[in-house]
C-alpha cells in the first residue's frame, strides 16, 4: 500500500530523469511530493510528519551552511538534512504545484 519505491543503490538515477528532489528546491520555491525513496520505517515517520505524496512542500530557512533546512509541510515546519531531502522526489513541475 505504501507509495514508495525502496532504492538501496547509492546515487541511482531516479526513474524520472527530470524529476527534482526536495534538496534541489531553493528557499521560497515550492514543490509537490511524489514519493519517498527511503526505507519503510523512515518513510512512515516522515509521512506522519506530513511528508505525504501530493502535499505541497515549501523550503524555509536553513542552518548556516545550507543544511539542515526547515521545510513547511502540512501546517508545520520540519528540519531535514540534505541526505534525507534528496530522497524525497517531487512531481515533475509545470508551475509550482496547485
Amino acid at each position, binding site marked *: *500500500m505504501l507509495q514508495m519505491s525502496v532504492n538501496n543503490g547509492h546515487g541511482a538515477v531516479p526513474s524520472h530523469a527530470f524529476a527534482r528532489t526536495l534538496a534541489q528546491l531553493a528557499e521560497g520555491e515550492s514543490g509537490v511530493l511524489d514519493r519517498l525513496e527511503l526505507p519503510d520505517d523512515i518513510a*512512515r515517520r516522515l509521512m506522519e510528519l506530513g511528508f505525504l505524496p501530493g502535499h505541497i512542500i515549501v523550503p524555509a530557512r536553513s*542552518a548556516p551552511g545550507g543544511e*539542515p533546512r526547515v521545510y513547511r509541510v502540512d*501546517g*508545520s515546519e520540519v*528540519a531535514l*538534512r540534505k*541526505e534525507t531531502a534528496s530522497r524525497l522526489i517531487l512531481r515533475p513541475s509545470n508551475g509550482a504545484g496547485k
Partner: protein
Amino acid sequence: MSDCHDCAGCAVAEAPRSLTNGARPHVVAIIGPPNSGKSTLFNRLTGLRQKVANFPGVTVEQRVGKAKMPHQHSDVVLVDLPGVYSLNPRSEDEQVTRDVLAGAMPGVPKPDALLLILDCTNLGRHLVLAAPILSLKLPTLVILNMADDLKSRGGHVDTAELASELGSPVALISASKGEGVEKVFQFMEGTSAGTTSLAPPRVELPILQDIPRCRQWAHDVGTGAAYRAPAPPMWTRRLDSVFLHPIAGPLIFLIVVAGVFQTIFSGAKPLMDGLQALFLKTGHGIEHILPPSILRSLLVDGILSGVGAVIVFLPQILLLFLFIGILEDSGYLARAALIADRTMAKFGLQGKSFIPLISAYACAVPAIMATRTIENKRDRLATILIAPLMTCSARLPVYLLIIGAFIADRPLLGRFFGMQAGALLGLYILGFVAAIATARLLKSSILKSERVPFVLEMPPYRWPTLRSLGLRLIDRSKVFLRRAGTVILLVIVVLWVLENLPVKNGQPPEIADSFAGMIGHAVEPVIKPLGFNWKIGIGLVSSIAARETIVGTLGTIYGKEGTEDSLGLRNALRSDLTPGGAVALLIFFAFAMQCMSTVAVVRRETGGWKWPAIQFAYMTLLAYVCALITNQVVRSGIFTLTAHR
C-alpha cells in the same frame, strides 16, 4: 504490524467499567503527538502531585500524578504517555504507549479513560492520531489545545460537530492559560462515576496502517467540523528570520551558549558562597553546643562538610535547568539543535546532542537526563556515554586545589590570562576533546547507526510559563538532593568510620594506622606509577562516590580543614606530591568516572548495568593510562614544570 487494533479494543469495551471503580483508583492516560501541550496539561491537572520515573525496563520516562476532582472525594490517577504520532510500534515510545493502553505494561494499571490532546492550530495532521485511539473504544475526551492561538490567528472549529462525528466529547482549551480546563475535570468526574456513555462515531475509522488514507480521513473529519486552519504564525516566522539568519543566527547562538555558561559559573557564585558560609556557620554552631565527642566529629567533620560540599552545587544545577527550561519551552532549543547539527555531525553525533553536552559542563547527571530529547537510540547512548568526560562542576574544586598548589601564576597572555587560568582552560578543552574523540570512536564501531535521518519538528515560539519552569526546578532539586542525602551521605559516614577505626586505648588512630589508611596502603602499589602515595589513594577511593569528596578527604587526612584553610592543604600537598604526580592527578580526574550518581543515572537511563559498566571501565582505563604516561613524561623532565615554592 498487522494485528488489529479493533479486536484489542473490543475486548476492552466489554469490561463493565462501573465495576472497576471501588477500591482501585480511576486511571486516566494523557496521550497526544509531540508539541501538542501534553505536559502543560499534565502539570495543569496535577500540579506538584506528580512524580517522574521510568517505565519498567525501558528508557522512556513515565510521569504519574494525581488530580484532585473539584466535586468528588477520590483522586484520579493521571499517566502522562510519551508523545507519539501513531501507535505503530516502531520506536520505544510508541511501544510503551501501546502497551500501557492495552494494559500490558507491568506496574501500570490499564487506563479507564483517555485524554487525547491535539494541537488545534494543526488539526488536520494531529487528528490522524484520533483514529487508532478511538478504535480502542475507551471513554475518550478529545482535547483541542492552543485554543488561544487558533482564535488569535483566525482559525475556527465547530467542537459540537466534531464531537458528534467522532462519537466522543470534544473540549477546546488552552492548557498554558488554563482556559477550558474545567471541561477536562468534568469529563474525568463523569468517567470515574461511570456515567459516561460511549457513542459510536458517525464517521467510519480508516485502516490504521495506511498513513495517506488516515491523513485523508483526518482532513475529511476536519472539513465536516467546519475546521478552518489558522494563518501561519507570523511571529514565529519573524523570529526565525533573526534566529536562523545566516550571520545573526550563529552569533546569537554563541551568545546564548556563552551566556548560559557564564551565568552558571558567575551567577551561581554568590548563592554557592552563601550556602558554603551557612554550612560553616552551622558547623561552628554545633561545635559550640556539643562537647568534643565522636558524635560531634561525625556530625561536623563528616556529614556536614561532606554533604555540604555537594549541596553547594545546587544553585548551579538549578540555574542550568532554568535555562534549559526557558530554551526548551520557548522553542529556541529546536533552533539551537538545528544550528549545531552540522558541527555535531562531524563527530558522528547530531544537533540534539548539543544541549546535553553543554549541560554536562555543569553536571553529567542532568545532562544525561536531558538526552531524552534524542529519539535516535544510538545517538542518545553515544551522548550518554561521552557526557561524563565533559568537565563537570564537581571537578572544579579538585582542579582549583591542584592547580593552585602546583602551577605558578605567571602571565601567559597578558595580565588577565595567567598560567593557572590557562591550565584550567586546558583541562576543559581536554575533557571536550576526549568526549568528541570517544564519540567518533563509538559511532564508527559499536554504535554505528544505520543512518537514521535527522528529523526535527520546529515548534512555534511560545512564552515559557512560570508554572512549568517552577515545576521543573522543583523536580530536579528533589533528584539532586536525594542523591546528596543518600549516596554521598553514606560514603561520607563510611569513610569517617574507616578513618576512626580501629580504636586504640580509647583514642581514634593515626590516619596511617586506620582502616582508611590500610586501604590507602593497599592501593598504593597500583597507583605508585602514577606518582600518587597512599594518602592520595584514600582520596581516590573516597572520590569514587563523588569527585569533590577528595578535597574533603585530603583535608581530613592532612589534619587540616579542606575548605577553610586551603593554603595549608596546598602546602601539605606540595611537600607530598611530585609535580609529575600532580599533573597526573589532574589528568586522572579529567577522565575517570568517579561519580556514583552518574553511574546510577546511566543505569536508569540505559535500563541495565551493561553500559554503565562499560563506561566505567573505559573511563577508568583511559584515566589510568593517560595519568601514567603523564607522570612518566613529566618525571623524565621533557617538560619542566615550575612549582612556585
